[in-house]
């Protein structure tokens, strides 16, 4: 599960993002609520959380696109409240929604971005970028006619063209096929190896596992952070893995267990079932009557990141929803 990363940043690496108490409300609702975030140089920091939890809003606060209602801190050593102009120069931001010009060709888009950042010899840089992306023969295609995956690659290219020190990627791989996703992440790791810091939001668990550190946001509150292993350990969740001989048995078991005291979560995966609970003993007691049944194979496992997140999400909705 935990892939070893060759270039995990040193513990004493300087902080690229260091904010405390970040808060933002829209129409009276706190969308980002007292969020602290520390990201060290060279780190790939995963940003997870359900829809509407405030990930995009937090990223916008970091790069000065939104003004926080409360909170202080620095991004790349610049004050997020007063020096957003400096931050913008050194940050590459890839928005969740494609935000390059759809009625401009790929080359025109890149050329525009290069000129706005005042890059020397924009033509040459654009050409190099096109070659790197393998987009030379499509350079004249309008960006709006690209497929989703290509749009994402174009957006990434546009975000890193000016050589930023911090990359903010908002769901960069949504709707991208597995191979392209793998390549995308290989590229992110290459960039991080060269010293770039990356904050990336995602809904994919496998991507979370490729991050050096992750944090989990729900209803605007930061519920967990650390390495994947830390987050799973901190959750204190106990999980039974049940495999059965038939789909019907598993379905019936899922139905019987759902909502019982001690069982917080029942998640079927085809002919297997994950049964989790925050209290180990209560969970064991709850499932005891079914332990001896024929055709069911019970095994205690470490919960997956997904189990942990869904559990946290339920807890969060109980507390704040």
């Amino acid at each position, binding site marked *: 599960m935990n892939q070893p990363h060759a270039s995990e940043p040193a513990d004493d690496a300087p902080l690229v993002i260091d904010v405390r108490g970040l808060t933002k409300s829209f129409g009276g609702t706190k969308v980002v609520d007292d969020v602290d975030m520390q990201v060290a140089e060279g780190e790939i920091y995963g940003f997870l959380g359900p829809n509407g939890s405030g990930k995009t809003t937090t990223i*916008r606060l970091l*790069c*000065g*696109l*939104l*003004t926080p209602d409360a909170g202080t801190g620095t991004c790349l050593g610049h004050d997020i409240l007063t020096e*957003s*102009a*400096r931050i*913008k*120069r050194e*940050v590459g*931001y890839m*928005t969740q*929604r*494609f*935000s*390059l*010009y*759809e*009625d*401009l060709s790929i080359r*025109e888009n890149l*050329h*525009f*971005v290069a*000129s*706005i*950042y*005042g890059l020397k010899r924009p033509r040459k840089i654009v050409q190099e970028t096109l070659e790197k992306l393998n987009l030379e023969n499509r350079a004249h295609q*309008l960006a709006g006619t690209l497929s989703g995956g290509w749009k994402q690659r174009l957006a990434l290219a546009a975000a890193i063209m000016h050589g930023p020190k911090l990359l903010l990627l908002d769901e960069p791989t949504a709707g991208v096929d597995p191979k392209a996703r793998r390549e995308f992440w290989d590229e992110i790791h290459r960039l991080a190896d060269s010293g770039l810091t990356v904050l990336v939001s995602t809904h994919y668990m496998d991507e979370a596992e490729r991050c050096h550190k992750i944090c989990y946001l729900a209803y605007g509150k930061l519920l967990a952070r650390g390495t994947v292993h830390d987050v799973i350990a901190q959750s204190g969740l106990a999980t039974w893995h049940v495999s059965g001989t038939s789909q019907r048995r598993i379905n019936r078991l899922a139905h019987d267990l759902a909502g019982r005291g001690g069982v917080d979560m029942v998640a079927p995966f085809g002919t297997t079932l994950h049964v989790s609970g925050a209290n180990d003993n209560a969970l064991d007691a709850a499932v005891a009557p079914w332990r001896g049944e024929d055709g069911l194979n019970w095994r205690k496992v470490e919960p997956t990141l997904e189990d942990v997140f869904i559990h946290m999400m339920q807890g969060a909705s109980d507390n704040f929803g």
Partner: protein
Amino acid sequence: MRRFSLFRLGALIRKEFIQMRRDRLTFAMMLGVPVMQLVLFGYAINSDPKHLPTALFSQDHSVFTRTLVKGLENSDYFDIVGEARTAAEAEDMIRTGKVQFVVQIPPGFSRDMQRGQRPQLLLDADATDPAATGNAVAGLQLLATTVFNRDLQGSLAAQRAGTSLVDVVIHRRYNAEGRTELNIVPGLIGVILTMTMIIFTALAMTREIERGTMENLLTMPVRPLEVMMGKILPYIMIGYIQTAVVLAAAYWLFEVPIVGSLWLLSFVLFFFVAANLAVGFTFSTLARNQLQAIQMTIFFFLPSILLSGFMFPFRGMPVWAQWLGEVLPLTHFLRMVRGILLKGNGFAEIVPDMAALLAFLVGVSIVALNRYRQTLD
């Protein structure tokens, strides 16, 4: 640390032109709207209404009266639809719009004519629509000099070589200024520019917001003034093209004279177009979507048309409306463009209106730049 950069401005302008070129429909509209309006208005200008309802108020019944009536009907402009017996009745007919004209023959008309005393022939014209009455009025004047020739003999006949025998007195009602149609075409330039310029910048900006490209633009190091000028300058060029189209058509199709300096006109045009674009830019900072931007444009466009002196004579408006009109750029532009094209005015004559226009431009630009947000809040 971030100073205004011509390089960045150039990038923004180039981008805007590419987008303009790609958006075929809008581009066609930019050039099509002036042509279309010109043809529509041009038809109105050219229209030479005939057979206008006319009442006769004759206080002198003689052979001359009959000759006049026949002459009027032969001229095609006038249809005698009724006869008024009293002045009040005549007044009533014209006020209710039953007739466009009342031809009034005063008592002793034939006697005075025979004595060579040039009697008055009165024409009351409902001039609310001056384009409708202009030609008819001219027709009557011509008619009056020739129609009586056959009826006059002897010593009277000798008079016809010289001045006309009657004194045609035109009494224009409801529209003292009696503007000619020449007023309309130069004014049309201003109206077309007001409408298209405001709408195009307002849309160009809100489009960035609606399509989400604003988020990207805002994360890049651009200054508000650069964004604003990047939106405005490309459209100034479009404004010049539109003006050229209208002027060329006005000159060749409608034979509107161009008396004054085209250079001076171009100079005025620059600031007028910029003023409208600044208004459009301001609207785009207020509007949440393109529909709202269009609504705001109409909200500005209507008073511009109504209170600027394009539709109604400026001096005929109540004072409060005149004050409102004085604020609008179109008002000042109309005065300048009419002055330059029709009267051959030079720089000295347009200074007051130019100053007012500049004040408007500066004021609106300040509002626009203050309204422009560098964040998404």
